[in-house]
């Protein structure tokens, strides 16, 4: 549905994205993950035809975003990060304008606007001025605006930024609900968002793609051993020695400082081997207080840092990028 090849965008001496290639299949939700300034917005602006790439090509629904811009744009619903809406319009009037501007035939317009408002739960503010809406409503009107021409592809730049937790949950549910028929690319710098909404993650850092995979695979790929977190009250030296003696344990290291005499340890063991039972038994046998014992999966956060710092070390610093 979306095909991007060797996309590079430079602003004078600054390279925002470099040699970015990826494809997105029909009906997929893909998360574009990266720190601020990694090149997410630039890539999205190229896809939406707002900005031309310096080199490389991008196709949306089989249409080149540069050569067949109108055709490509007809199939895209876009929501920029800043959610730029016309504040002086009422919600319904605004959406009506967008539908007309996007070429929705006049006989369908009313129904389409109603449907988009219904979907994004903004029907109750249809008569309000856009400028008086709360951030959450603005965001949803922005989504309704993207949806009003029933596009095949949705491109959402940081759709949950600046929302409160309740609103974030609502927007995420909304986005998930839109999937299926539509292909969705959304960008974010919040990791849990990706694991919650996306089928696939594209991690971008300093304008380059550093990983493309499912959230699950990424976790598995980076995590080479099984880890357990253990909180124990006992003499640290002896505790560590005891743990090392256990079969299957590769490494043990204290984590953080002791609190009330308790200390947390990170125990790394061979992959596929669960050392938790043995650990618990050893602690109890020695009469140390066992306060906590839980598996420590690398969170996406850690994977992300892992990938991004590897990447940063591999490239010379200073190739900063603009969002």
């Amino acid at each position, binding site marked *: 549905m979306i095909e991007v090849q060797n996309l590079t965008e430079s602003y004078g001496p600054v390279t925002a994205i470099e040699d970015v290639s990826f494809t997105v299949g029909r009906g997929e939700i893909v998360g574009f993950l990266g720190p601020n300034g990694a090149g997410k917005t630039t890539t999205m*602006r190229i896809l939406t035809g707002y*900005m031309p790439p310096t080199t490389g090509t991008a196709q949306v629904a089989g249409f080149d975003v540069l050569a067949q811009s109108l055709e490509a744009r007809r199939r895209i619903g876009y929501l920029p990060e800043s959610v730029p809406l016309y504040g002086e319009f009422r919600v319904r009037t605004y959406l009506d*304008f967008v539908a007309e*501007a996007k070429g929705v035939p006049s006989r369908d317009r009313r129904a389409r606007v109603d449907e988009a408002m219904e979907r994004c739960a903004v029907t109750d503010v249809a008569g309000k001025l856009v400028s008086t809406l709360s951030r959450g409503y603005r965001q949803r009107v922005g989504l309704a605006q993207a949806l009003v021409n029933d596009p095949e592809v949705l491109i959402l730049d940081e759709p949950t930024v600046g929302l409160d937790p309740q609103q974030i949950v609502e927007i995420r549910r909304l986005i998930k609900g839109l999937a299926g028929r539509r292909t969705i690319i959304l960008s974010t710098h919040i990791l849990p968002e990706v694991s919650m909404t996306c089928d696939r993650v594209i991690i971008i850092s300093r304008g380059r793609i550093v990983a493309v995979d499912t959230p699950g695979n990424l976790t598995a790929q980076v995590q080479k051993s099984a880890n357990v977190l253990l909180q124990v009250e006992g003499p640290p030296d002896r505790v560590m020695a005891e743990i090392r003696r256990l079969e299957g344990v590769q490494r043990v290291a204290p984590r953080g400082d002791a609190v009330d005499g308790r200390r947390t340890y990170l125990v790394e063991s061979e992959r596929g081997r669960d050392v938790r039972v043995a650990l618990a038994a050893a602690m109890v046998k020695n009469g140390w207080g066992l306060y906590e014992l839980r598996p420590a999966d690398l969170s996406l956060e850690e994977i992300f840092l892992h990938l991004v710092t590897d990447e940063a070390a591999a490239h010379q610093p200073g190739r900063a990028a603009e969002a």
Partner: protein
Amino acid sequence: MAHILAIFKKEIRAYFVSPVAYGVLTIFALVAGYYFWIVVGVYQRAGFQSMMNPQIAQGLNPSDWVFRPLFSFLSVIVLFLMPAITARLFAEEKRQGTAELLFTYPIRDVELLLGKFFAATALALAMLGLTLAYPLLLGLFVPIEWGPTLTGYLGMALMMMAFLAVGTLISSLTEHQLIAFTVSFGAALLLWLIGWAADGAGPTGRAVLKHLSLLEHRESFAKGVLETKDIIFFLNFTFFFLFLTLRSLESKRWRG
């Protein structure tokens, strides 16, 4: 076509939900009305004098005594007001960030441009239309020569469109309304003053400068002379600046 209409309606609505339209229309109606009252007063006094001096009576008609001075005066007001109408057209979209959405809708740049330009023109013509009350009013008391009056209106309309085209171009180049207004006003003023410089120039320079002066061309309409070359001049001028605006919009797509 449908896209042009969509943009046109949106712009008209934007003019009337903001103070722009009301401000421009009010100022114009006030100033034009006041000036009309003055010239009619002058015309009236000349009418009294003509009873004693038949020579004055010969050239005493509303076209020469009321409408030509009125149009000359309105041309000056228009210099201020046309930039006020066009300043927001593109600058505001860019400042608010709405350009990012507007430019990603499936609308051709030319449709976008024409929608906006027609909206500005409609507001300007509505403004000029307010003054149609004057000949109608005056017509109750003296016979009006409708020919020269209407060509005068045509000249005004064409000149306003030319100023609007310049302002539209400048608005597409900046994201600050104030800059757009100031530069457009400066450009309009220059195009007006250029005719004055003609008097000091040599024969060739004089012809060129006079030809470039928008007010010079409008003046012949007010005299009741409908010349193709003047019409063509205004249309060319307008098209040229709209064309440049189109280029400026398109350049966003390759300049990034």
